């Protein structure tokens, strides 16, 4: 019996504003893996994560970011998404996409706000290489029934691939 199962893979044949996973199945944890690029003209751009279609100011974000020889941590609350999972922008080479892995633990537990942990990289071969660790909080104890990824006002470009995995606990 497989403990990790691919719930759904989305490969973009054309640019889109967002991708939503809405059939999450019944697992203990979820993991979302993305190889992504956006239409932002810069070297990178943040991907945003919303849960259950909630676009209210119910999210908090904290992250560690290393870029070039610099490093800094950031904190913000009252956000309309969990963000900071940077993907490449279209300012990088056509073959260069950013990598993102996001863990969403206990997503069906109605006694917990949903919290996520993720790592991301962007523009590693480009002009502004970044590596990022992200902490995200959705201030809602509802079971997660959908996960949406978008790059805010930009699009995800053709060739971006997203796979959602379910991880069992028995």
């Amino acid at each position: 019996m497989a403990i990790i199962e691919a719930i759904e893979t989305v490969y973009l044949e054309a640019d889109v504003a967002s991708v939503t996973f809405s059939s999450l199945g019944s697992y203990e944890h979820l993991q979302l893996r993305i190889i992504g690029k956006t239409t932002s003209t810069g070297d990178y751009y943040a991907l945003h994560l919303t849960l259950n279609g909630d676009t209210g100011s119910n999210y908090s974000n904290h992250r560690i970011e290393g870029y070039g020889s610099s490093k800094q941590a950031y904190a913000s609350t009252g956000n309309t998404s969990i963000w900071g999972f940077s993907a490449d922008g279209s300012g990088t080479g056509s073959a260069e996409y950013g990598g993102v892995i996001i863990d969403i633990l206990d997503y069906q537990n109605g006694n917990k706000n949903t919290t996520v942990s993720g790592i991301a990289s962007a523009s590693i071969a480009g002009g502004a290489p970044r590596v990022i660790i992200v902490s995200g909080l959705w201030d809602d104890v509802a079971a997660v029934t959908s996960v949406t990824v978008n790059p805010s006002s930009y699009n995800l470009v053709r060739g971006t691939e997203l796979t959602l995995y379910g991880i069992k606990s028995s």
Partner: protein
Amino acid sequence: MACWNVIEHQELSSGASSVSFTGISASYDHLVLLSSARSDEATINGYMNFQVNGDTGTNYSRRSLNANTSTIGTSSAVNQSVFIYQYVPALNSLADTFGVMETWFIDYSNTSNYTQILSQSVGPNNSATDSQWGLRLSSGIWTSTAAINRVDVLCDSGSDDFVQYSTFTLYGINGAG
């Protein structure tokens, strides 16, 4: 052969100062612990630690990259009686908020080398104020070549409790062949 295998899943029905996984088979290549936990300590950021094989001696060392302000810091400690000091939200953080932690015990049954662990934790909170949130990436070493057959997860150093609904899932990871 399945690559990932569930060794044991525990969800707390009431507070507990520690969670133990015992009788761990040596038949896997690696162990992974995923936890969604919260502490009852009267602070904002609590801590989660480990001991293995019941070893309470000063045989654990660690190095961490962490942030709970805008400045990223590093820290290290050697010859400790626990490792790895990962963040968990505590009593004074946002209610119902649990931390996310993933820890790998690499080659845990190899008796030629000391056991290395890699761990990432986040202590989420609805605050941007310094020290009211935290992220940490840590490496640790247990200076013993014994195969790990037991993992104890401690709330702080066993002085506080993980709260109800905290979950801990230990996976065994197979290699090829």
